[in-house]
């Protein structure tokens, strides 16, 4: 199935893909409707906790999302929103203890990988799913050459010889357009520029052509000019290999050009999902709207920049009801009592909006009002 999907996907028109993906993106519904075979990755009602000295921190509280081959899901949120923790749970690289998956399912090619033994999950990392981290300098081992670290993928997973692995490493470096790859393969991470280092991280993630890539703030640590180059490279390679991509970011600007759909996270929950342009045009959650309003815009030059008031919640003491209520301009009593479900968003006339959901009691007012 994997290979079928892949070849089909490669041939397929991207727009068609997107349309299919949108259906799958509907929270928790795709599988029930059985319209389409299982998506590449589906996270269902995931819970992750961290034991700390002061109590249990609930980092992820029932997150569900899905990604298809060739599709890009952007997960948006502040630090502490659980976006990275979810990603680490998918990869199986949570620091445990203190962290642990407290519930839910992670279906990868339809199989719940949380049920797999660690030895099996390890074999998924690299050949099937890979991760790109934020800070390439600290994420690359300082005492081994980049060639060694790239080649390691082939040596460990494919039993390749050192010599062949090095040739593969050079090939990969060429692929991510690192100049003079042959000469630089024995250099150490600190000898590269920030952008080049992040290319090496990308090369490492792509090495075994995985089906899924998770990029955790891949451009945050880079200069603005380099950010675009790295993002373009990532998007291009994703298309080429028809991979599913989860792009974790707090930067709405990065998302707009590359993502197909967005999931906005707050305090360990998804508060809104939407196709990327819809979200920009008509947010259906006050938090999303706050985020959008706090982007500086040229036409508002001179005006004071909007900022969401207050601080992100303490995960040890998440507010009752909607976690966003203390910071929300629209909060009512119901917001302090009931946790809003992620519900479908419809037009005023009741027409369903594809792939849209909001976890706000007042989504109607937010989107239409």
């Amino acid at each position, binding site marked *: 199935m994997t290979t079928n999907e892949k070849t089909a996907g490669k041939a397929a028109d991207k727009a068609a893909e997107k349309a299919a993906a949108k259906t799958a993106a509907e929270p928790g519904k795709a599988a029930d409707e059985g319209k389409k075979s299982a998506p590449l990755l589906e996270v269902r009602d995931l819970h992750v906790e961290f034991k700390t000295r002061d109590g249990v921190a609930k980092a992820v509280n029932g997150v569900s999302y899905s990604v298809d081959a060739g599709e890009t899901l952007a997960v948006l949120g502040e630090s502490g929103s659980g976006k990275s923790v979810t990603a680490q749970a998918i990869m199986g690289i949570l620091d445990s203890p203190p962290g642990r998956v407290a519930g839910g399912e992670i279906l990868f090619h339809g199989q719940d990988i949380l049920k797999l033994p660690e030895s099996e999950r390890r074999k998924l990392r690299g050949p099937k799913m890979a991760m790109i981290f934020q*800070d390439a*300098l*600290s994420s690359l081992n300082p005492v081994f050459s980049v060639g060694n670290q790239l080649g390691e993928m082939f040596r460990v997973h494919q039993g390749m010889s050192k010599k062949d692995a090095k040739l593969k490493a050079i090939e990969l470096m060429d692929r991510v357009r690192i100049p003079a790859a042959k000469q630089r393969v024995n250099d150490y991470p600190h000898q590269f520029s920030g952008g080049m280092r992040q290319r090496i991280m990308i090369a490492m993630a792509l090495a075994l052509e995985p089906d899924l890539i998770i990029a955790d703030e891949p451009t945050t640590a880079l200069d603005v000019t380099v950010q675009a180059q790295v993002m373009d490279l990532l998007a291009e390679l994703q298309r080429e290999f028809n991979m599913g991509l989860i792009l974790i970011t707090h930067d709405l600007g990065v998302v707009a050009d590359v993502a197909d759909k967005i999931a906005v996270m707050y305090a360990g929950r998804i508060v809104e999902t939407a196709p990327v342009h819809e979200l920009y045009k008509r947010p259906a959650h006050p938090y999303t709207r706050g985020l959008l309003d706090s982007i500086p815009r040229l036409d508002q030059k001179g005006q004071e920049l909007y900022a969401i008031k207050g601080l992100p919640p303490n995960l040890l003491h998440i507010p009752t009801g909607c976690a966003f209520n203390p910071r929300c301009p629209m909060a009512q009593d119901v917001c302090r009592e009931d946790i809003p479900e992620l519900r479908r968003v419809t037009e005023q006339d009741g027409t369903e909006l594809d792939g849209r959901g909001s976890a706000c009691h007042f989504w109607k007012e937010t989107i239409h009002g």
Partner: protein
Amino acid sequence: MTELAKSQGPGAATAEPAAATGTAEPAPARITQWGEIRHRFMANRLAVVGLVLVLLLFLTAALAPLIATHDPYAQDLGNTLASPSGDHWFGTDALGRDQFSRVIYGSRIAVVVGLASIFLACLIGLVLGALAGYFGKTVDTVIMRIADIFFAFPLLIGAIVIILVMGRGVMPVILSLAIFSWATVSRLLRSSILSVREMDYVTAAKALGASTSRIIIRHIMPNSIAAVMSFIAFSVGTAIVAEASLSYLGVGVSPEVPEWGNMISSARDFMGVKDFLWMYPSVAIVLTVLGFVFVGDGLRDALDPKLR
């Protein structure tokens, strides 16, 4: 620059494992302030035990005449090498002197030598460090080279050379230990101040427009001083061991002085036969050193709790 680009040399390298291993994770601005350090220190059981031990040592030294049951110098040749008893709690030595009283009085030498030598070492280190800082490059280089020379002497060997010149006694021991400890102090002060000055949160405080004195008092001082205090606690422990070692070797304070190293050394002839002779002074010195080590550890952990 002739030094390693990253550190002042292997000494600094071992003192800073974080720098050496280069875990360049963007450290969250560490704003450690007095109350926080004290709180963390007091929450550390071992540190409190250490503090109690050190305070007990000071108290014993101060009140030695009141605690001691006998004159530590009084010989009783009719009652030598007596096992511990109701009258002589720790027994008597080869000259019939009361061991308990000698152990109690021994704390005085430990306290005086430990504190005075490290105080002096810090003074020399500070003065030379300030000179180096004030006059800059050439003087700095010269002073650091001189420090290198003193640094190259193993502590005991260096101390012995000085004592050879000055003769045995408390003063020579203090001076000799100070002369061969200041180089370490000045290196530490230098690197500590340099590293704190470079930390993100100091830069941040500067950027926020905090005044220089405020930065120094609120941000640099707690970190620098706590680091230096932790180092001092270790150093005093080391100095006490060094002082006892010198006496043990027969080049420290005079042999008749009640001092732990002396006592253990004179017990050598009765090894395995009259073990109470070396056991009590050994317990005294071990508890003393542990006290200072625990306090030093506690201070270090209070500064950087993630390493515990």
